[in-house]
């Protein structure tokens, strides 16, 4: 039941016919809590009565209750009709989407996760954001191999059969593209949280610790300082990863959210590098080289580098620092009415766990501490919620996260003061959403 909002929101939008006088509108505003007020605001007369069902009971009660629907009076559908279940037909709006004009070729592009409609901390696998550098593949897992070479005693080859019999771990981690929110470095550029923050997902990954594999190959611990991860696709994406991470929490993963990885996310094997930007999570992983120098791969020498005001580029800056964003209400959404709301959002840090999230509704002047929902895990998304009663006046909503190192998420002007305005990557500033009197939420910058 998707209603035209002009019908639903009492106070917010003038009647579509635009035939209510200012006087009548004012009356409607005052009486808006009552049914009559809503009816008045929706449009006078007979039309209003017909539409009033959306707002509340008329006479004996609401049709949705008094007239039993087909699904209550008939026989439902059989089991296994959809052998692999799909979301409800009513949820078709919440899908991965491209940002038109962002890239010229769809094989080197992005599709964004619809954060505005998601709950909790786990991203449904079908909604995990996509970033491909040279198109995606659905690789036959029986033909996939992982090679480990370089500074090891034994250069080894593993099949999927080999890898999947090794001791596995399952860990929940976020993955964020280093360019997430990049469009907002200078000015506000996009219309919703899907496009401003949607290169962000969080899943339970299952795989073998890279350290286990490196130990099995007899890694030269004295000389090894870096590893190079390489993909099996056309781009054969490579990234340098610090040995500290490689020997700590990096996973060679085959599963995501209880099933094998989706092809768009690297089936059958990808690297999981907790806390580090998504480009390092090499998909279709075919090779790990242990080395003693950085590799200056294309995506660490030309892209994913931070352009500083003095003209230098910071190379090898991969940590996704502490960040948060309110997902509801967020830009492009319309509040149905004034009154009670649950403001909800996500917080995360590549350096550890989320310690606290504060929320402001007055553009950052005053803050209240939000409730953190469990589980609160290191290098994973954390869901926060806070009560808010909207008084119908303009408001500016912000969230500010603090991580376990004590780092406080910065404002965009603080970020620019250090890194300048030409930078693209690693934009973790506080996001502002403006709520207008008509209930419309939009993307603004306030600091």
């Amino acid at each position: 039941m998707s209603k035209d909002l002009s019908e639903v929101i009492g106070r917010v939008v003038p009647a579509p016919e635009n035939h209510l006088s200012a006087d009548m509108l004012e009356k409607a505003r005052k009486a808006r809590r009552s049914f009559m007020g809503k009816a008045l605001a929706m449009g006078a007369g007979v039309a209003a009565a017909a539409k009033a069902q959306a707002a509340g009971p008329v006479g004996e009660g609401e049709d949705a209750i008094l007239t039993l629907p087909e699904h209550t009076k008939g026989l439902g559908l059989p089991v296994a009709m959809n052998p692999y279940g799909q979301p409800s037909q009513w949820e078709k709006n919440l899908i991965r989407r491209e940002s038109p004009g962002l890239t010229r070729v769809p094989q080197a592009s992005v599709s964004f996760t619809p954060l505005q409609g998601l709950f909790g901390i786990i991203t449904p696998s079908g909604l995990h954001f996509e970033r491909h550098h040279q198109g995606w593949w659905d690789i036959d897992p029986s033909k996939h191999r992982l090679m480990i070479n370089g500074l090891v005693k034994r250069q080894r080859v593993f099949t999927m059969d080999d890898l999947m019999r090794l001791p596995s771990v399952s860990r929940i981690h976020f993955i964020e593209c280093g360019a997430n929110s990049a469009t907002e470095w200078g000015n506000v550029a996009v219309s919703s949280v899907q496009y401003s923050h949607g290169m962000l997902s969080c899943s339970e990954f299952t795989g073998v610790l890279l350290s286990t594999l490196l130990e099995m190959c007899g890694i030269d611990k004295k000389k090894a300082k870096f590893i190079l991860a390489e993909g099996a696709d056309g781009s054969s994406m490579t990234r340098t990863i610090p040995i500290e991470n490689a020997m700590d929490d990096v996973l060679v993963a085959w599963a995501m959210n209880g099933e094998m990885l989706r092809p768009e996310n690297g089936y059958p094997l990808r690297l999981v590098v907790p806390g580090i930007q998504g480009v390092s999570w090499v998909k279709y992983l075919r090779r790990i080289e242990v080395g003693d120098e950085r590799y200056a791969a294309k995506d660490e020498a030309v892209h994913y580098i931070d352009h500083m005001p003095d003209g230098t580029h910071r190379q090898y800056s991969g940590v996704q620092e502490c960040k948060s964003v309110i997902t509801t209400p967020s830009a492009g959404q319309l509040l149905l009415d004034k009154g009670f709301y649950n403001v909800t959002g996500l917080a995360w840090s590549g350096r550890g766990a989320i310690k606290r999230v504060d929320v402001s509704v007055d553009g950052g002047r005053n803050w209240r501490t939000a409730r953190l929902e469990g589980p609160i895990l290191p290098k994973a998304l954390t869901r926060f919620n806070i009560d808010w009663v909207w008084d119908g006046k303009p408001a500016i909503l912000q969230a500010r996260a603090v991580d376990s190192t004590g780092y406080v998420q910065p404002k965009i002007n603080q970020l620019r003061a250090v890194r300048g305005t030409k930078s693209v990557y690693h934009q973790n500033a506080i996001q502002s959403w403006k709520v207008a009197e008509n209930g419309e939420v939009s993307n603004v910058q306030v600091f």
Partner: protein
Amino acid sequence: MKTKLKLSVAAVLLGAAFTGVAHADNKTAMMSVGRDATPAEVKAWDIDVRPDFKGLPKGAGSVSMGENVWEDKCAACHGGFGESNEVFTPIIGGTTAEDIKNGRVAALVEGAKSTAPQKTTIMKVATVSTLWDYINRAMPWNAPKSLTTDEVYGVVAYLLSLAGVVPADHTLSDKNIAEAQARMPNRNGMAYYEPMWKTSGKGDVKNVLCMKDCATEVKITSFLPDYAKSAQGNLVEQNRVVGPTRGVDTSKPASK
């Protein structure tokens, strides 16, 4: 009840039996999973080239040979001179002879004027190995890894000649590539900042944890103009049909 109890006791005993296996045996058995890579296999896949040229295969290619390959396989996307912004961001442009001398691209400094409409690859890249490695592993776009080693040298030579790093009659090879590196326009343009490389580091940007009457102007410094609100499509179709909010209908003129 009794059966259940028996079962759970059995389960505990079974668990003990598994964990009771000597740990060393487990480890030895685990270490034998997988197999050694053959030299030919390592050679086939270990294609990366580092900034110190470790991994660079022997070979050579002239600017003119590279130009031919370029015209044939690269120009359609990148433009005849690597300048095109049609399909991918431009590769060549925005660097000067002075940059080559200094190893720093002056146009990258905040506020500086650039002759290129946007940052090009050659303005940014500090290491010639990066160009070689990437062209070798990922280009051409629709047929990666199809160039011969000498062709890769030729294409890199052609690009470097367009940027004035090597002369037009140059032949680039594994023997002289270090000389090209010494003339890369932005070779001194990279900074290494460890706190953004290590997850254990501390950041470079500071905010304070103010809760009341915090210093802020609460001034909207930037907002999305009305015409741009539908740039990513109609948002009413990108939000749920129930819940505390709906999507804004951005197909209609903005409401007041």
